[in-house]
């Protein structure tokens, strides 16, 4: 019996450790469904117009840990590579996405601006925005 309790408790603890936070890429409700490749292309400003709407990607602040997770997972570039990428894009006339300091600001912006797309922690999600992609870490 004692062994069974230890195994059960160990399983619970391991599950709790392995279950990380969940994050979501969100858009204005008028946005069509997008693949991760399209989301990446929007955040790299390779796609400027989607479904006849101006695509407006919005980042969290440079030091925000959710931004780092998003850039590693979806954009597939770390902070240093993105710095060199945006310097090169400046030469061809493109600007990095605008940044906002809080998830609430991102959510409010995405809710109110057609073509807007951002990312937040899933625990801050509500039905005012559309979920394009989910991932957990």
């Amino acid at each position, binding site marked *: 019996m004692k062994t069974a309790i230890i195994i059960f408790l160990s399983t619970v603890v391991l599950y709790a450790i392995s279950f990380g936070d969940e994050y979501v890429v969100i858009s204005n409700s008028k946005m069509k469904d997008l*693949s991760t*490749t*399209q989301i990446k*292309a929007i955040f790299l400003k*390779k*796609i*400027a*117009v*989607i*479904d*006849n709407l*101006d*695509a407006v990607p919005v980042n969290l602040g440079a030091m925000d840990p959710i931004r780092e997770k998003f850039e590693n997972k979806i954009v*597939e*570039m*770390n902070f*240093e*590579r993105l*710095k*060199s990428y*945006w*310097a*090169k894009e*400046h*030469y*061809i*006339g493109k*600007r*990095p996405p605008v940044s906002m300091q809080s998830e609430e600001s991102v959510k409010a912006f995405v809710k109110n601006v057609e073509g807007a797309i951002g990312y937040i922690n899933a625990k801050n999600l509500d039905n005012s925005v559309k979920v394009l992609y989910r991932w957990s870490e």
Partner: protein
Amino acid sequence: MRYIALVFIFLLSLHAEEEYQLGKGVQIGSLPFYVGGYFSLDYKHTDNTDRYRVDDVAVMGYGDYDKFSYLIELEFKEVYVETHENGVKSTTHNDKLYTERLYLDYNFNENYMLRVGKYNSPIGFWNLLPVNILRETTSNPMSTNILFPKFTTGLNSSYMSYGEGELKVDVMLQHNNDISYEYNNYKMNEHYGFGVSYEKNDYTVKLNGGYFHNLNENIIQDNLYYLLLSAKYESSKYQILSEIGSQKSKNQYTTEYAGYIQGLYRFSEQHLGIIRVESYDDRVTAIDDDILIFGYTYRPLYPIAIKSEYQFHSQSDQNQFLFSFSVLF
């Protein structure tokens, strides 16, 4: 040149909504108009020659509105060159302002884009980022100078598709004279070219081909065809870049082959090591050469580059040391 500087200073004095960061340009007021630029200084040493040069001084303006975006770049090229050859000093000045790029884009949707104006020909990888501050070595590979026209003045139509990877198809059309043709590597009045690239994860491959009508009287063949195959691998630590191609007239090869493979290693964010091997056989100039290049680049900030390189040529009198300082602003 001073008028350009005055205009630039005036524009910078206008209130910008964003805080200025080096290498990102500055917004003019709240207009869809950003101003930036770059400059480079370089030094070259061979057995007989030392050359000091203020190479590029350029100002760019760009922006977007609705489905349109635009870019204009004006540049002074080789503003000041001082050469010491066998103990004899000579200097040249050039205060002519060139239109390096001038184009308007229209984005139909996520798949189609049309560009009209003068633009960097989307051929290979190197030619898309040809300025000193953005490339990894002071020198350019020979293949990027001799195989195809660096600039096209006309139309560029792009198709992009996003599946598991990213597919891009470019079509270039020129049937008119160049804008500022003095600054292109070929004086021409026709250019029809295509490009197909596919990018997935860290890998990209690209194929370009085309035809152009050369007006340079020093080159007898006027109808020239080119083909270029390019490949790139890039991770956070490494980059491997290779381009190889050929150019021919109707009857014979004008450049039988020209290509390079370059490896880059990032020791840290600021320190980069580069090795490049080049080879080419140019029938027009009757020069064939093999080149081994070792380079080191220091970027205290990404928009500031201090580069040095040493080139070993199979024609040993061409061995040279290059040093440059460049800034993107």
